[in-house]
């Protein structure tokens, strides 16, 4: 019988008497499952955060802030400076009005639903063009705030994550009361973590005079970013950084995403090492239980390669089963689960969903495969080298 046929035959035999080794095998499966589950759960936080923040960014819009600011929070622009941007080359105009929004970004304390304690929620003052410089934003419930009034619209995500943000409720920050008149939907992007109001009202409430922190403008076309950047760089009245909104959000999310990955991957590697020990244990036990059977097969003429391969295959199949189990559980339990956390650069909460992506599941399965191969290899070598005569004598 050629080797492939032998391998198939022996593997089939192994699997058929797996029920006799159920306990050991179950332990290996669950061990791998736990690794993939934890891996998918932790890394889906990074994936979800990235998706939330990146989906907000578009290349059609440029974000302008004072040079060197690491985030809107740290930036500062005067009214004159925003007007300079409005009239710079490369910006999209609707008639003779620039499609833009000069904005103010502050933080307000609102209670978080999950911990019932205060959290820094982003509170943004916008101009009329705010909906036009962002993609896919629309009022979902209630109505848009009226200019000049202490009225707020809240992002859908913010409303579910924080307390007291229902349409019709009022909220007090410091000395000012604000009425919540509506919610907006931004496709699940980071904008939905924010509260929005008229920038003039916010400036007054926070005593910012006539200053802003960022300007968002729609660009004429793909090359406009460079044009705008150059024009503003050459202008001595203004000292700013110009970047596409996509790049801006990328920079904002990098820190936290990298942090989660830096913890998630080593954690998974450690767990995988543990799972390998567990798999080795199971497979050694499996080989010793099947000792006589293997010896019999060898005596009948099956080669050591067949024995070795079939053992590795058994280990891999158990590991993959565990991987599927863990991945499925991660997907069912975690995918779409909403949480929020503090994002360093903006010093405010960002609301996002766990995203158990196909890519993550793929990585998890690859890890399971690796565990299966390593966990099966050494026991397989021992099985292949089993001295046939001694084993048969015990029969």
């Amino acid at each position: 019988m050629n080797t492939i046929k032998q391998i198939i035959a022996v593997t089939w035999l192994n699997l058929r008497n797996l029920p006799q080794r159920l306990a050991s095998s179950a332990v290996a499966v669950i061990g791998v499952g736990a690794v993939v589950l934890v891996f998918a759960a932790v890394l889906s936080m990074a994936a979800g955060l990235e998706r939330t923040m990146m989906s907000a960014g578009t290349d059609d819009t440029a974000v302008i802030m004072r040079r060197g600011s690491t985030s809107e929070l740290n930036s500062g622009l005067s009214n004159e400076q925003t007007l300079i941007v409005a009239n710079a080359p490369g910006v999209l105009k609707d008639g003779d009005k620039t499609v833009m929004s000069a904005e103010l970004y502050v933080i307000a304390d609102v209670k978080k639903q999950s911990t019932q304690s205060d959290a820094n929620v982003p509170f943004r003052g916008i101009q009329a063009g705010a909906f036009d410089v962002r993609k896919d934003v629309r009022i979902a419930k209630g109505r848009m705030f009226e200019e000049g009034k202490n009225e707020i619209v809240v992002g859908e995500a913010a409303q579910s994550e924080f307390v007291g943000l229902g349409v019709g409720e009022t909220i007090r920050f410091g000395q000012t009361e604000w009425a919540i008149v509506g919610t907006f939907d931004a496709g699940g992007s980071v904008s939905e973590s924010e509260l929005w109001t008229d920038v003039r009202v916010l400036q007054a409430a926070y005593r910012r005079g006539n200053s802003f922190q960022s300007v968002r403008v729609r660009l004429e076309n793909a090359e406009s970013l460079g044009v705008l950047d150059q024009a503003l760089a050459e202008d001595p009245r203004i000292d700013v950084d110009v970047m596409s909104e996509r790049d801006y959000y990328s920079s904002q999310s990098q820190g936290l995403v990298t942090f989660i990955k830096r913890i998630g991957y080593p954690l998974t590697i450690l767990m995988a090492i543990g799972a390998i020990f567990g798999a080795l244990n199971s497979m050694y036990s499996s080989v010793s239980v099947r000792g006589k059977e293997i010896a019999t097969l060898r005596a009948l003429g099956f080669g050591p390669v067949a024995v070795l391969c079939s053992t590795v295959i058994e280990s891999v199949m158990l590991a993959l089963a565990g991987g599927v189990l863990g991945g499925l559980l991660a997907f069912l339990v975690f995918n779409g689960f909403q949480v929020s956390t503090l994002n360093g650069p903006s010093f405010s909460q960002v609301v996002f969903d766990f995203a158990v992506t196909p890519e993550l599941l793929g990585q998890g399965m690859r890890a399971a495969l690796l565990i299966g191969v390593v966990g099966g290899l050494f026991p397989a070598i021992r099985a292949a080298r089993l001295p046939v005569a001694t084993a048969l004598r015990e029969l």
Partner: protein
Amino acid sequence: MKYFGLIWKNVWRKKIRTSLTILSVLVAFLLFALLSALGYAFKGGEDVADAERLVVINKVSLINPLPMAYMNRIAATEGVQAVTHASWFGGYYQDPRNQFGQFPTDPYEYFSLYPELKMPQEQFNAWAKNRQGAVIGREIADQYGINVGDRIPIQATIWTKADGSRTWEFDIEGIFETDDPRGSTAYMLFQYDYFEEARAFAKGTVGWYVLRVKPGADPVQIANAVDMQFANSPNETETSTEAAFAQSFAKQFGNIALIVTLIMGAVFFTLLLVSGNTMSQSVRERISELAVLKTLGFSDRSVLGVVLTESIVIMLIGGLLGLGIGWLIVQVIAGAMGAILPGIYLTSRAILTAICIMIGAGIVAGIFPALKAMRLSIIDALARA
């Protein structure tokens, strides 16, 4: 115990199996040590917070400043022993990724409010005399290789200078340490006077105040007294204990403790399965030996004890090794990355918890096989052989 020889030999019955099980236990407790230390870092120094220190911030949010004028009024409040102030500078050293805390404050007041900070007196004096002087914590000095006498530039992200530049230069006059191993020294202190003079805007304000209550005074009552003074003013205050303040920060990150608990739950669940399986195999293959022990006169209970002790021994060996390695890694991380993860520390409470888990897990993993051993009928067991 004299049975230990027997127990030890039984534990190592099948060397590979026991070694692999111990290694699984090791990994589980290594993870426990690392995650516990990480979770502790996220607590934001809650445990080292002084019970008698209160923090006063702007009620609207932490990023809103408070008037410097509040200083005297807070100091005059009944029950307040001493006050200092600090502000968030928020700059970075050389690279935007090298962000750590820099706080402008008054040297004398700050060090009297924070007596746990230790620095040689000459260094302190030099700093107090130098307007552009600054002192850095040991963790910053180690991480970035900065020494006393260096002149370092800090790039401001918020605070432009009146002359338009954003590069602030400081003379490092001293390096301070803290006498609590759980505390963090990943920050820099410099002179408020220099900050106030050189910054372009927000003059006359500070970020927050820190005060110490008189011994025996009720912190909650004093906190209320301070806040009442500024109620209905343009800048209302919110005063809380340092611990509560740190905790509120930690909570903003989310329920880290819950995440850590869930992960460790999955890890220990798997571990119990692995050890339980090992113990049950171990008992199954020596039923006749256990029966012989009983014929020799070992009581049912002592056989139970022998098996349970084997299970616990395996857990203790692997667990203590894992904890030990974990502790070493935490030391290394704290040294190398103290600035990024301030306060990463394996508390003695965590170690004690781990040991209790080791014993508990040993019992849980071994209980069913041990009961089986206890209950086996000598006659049936020997007849089967």
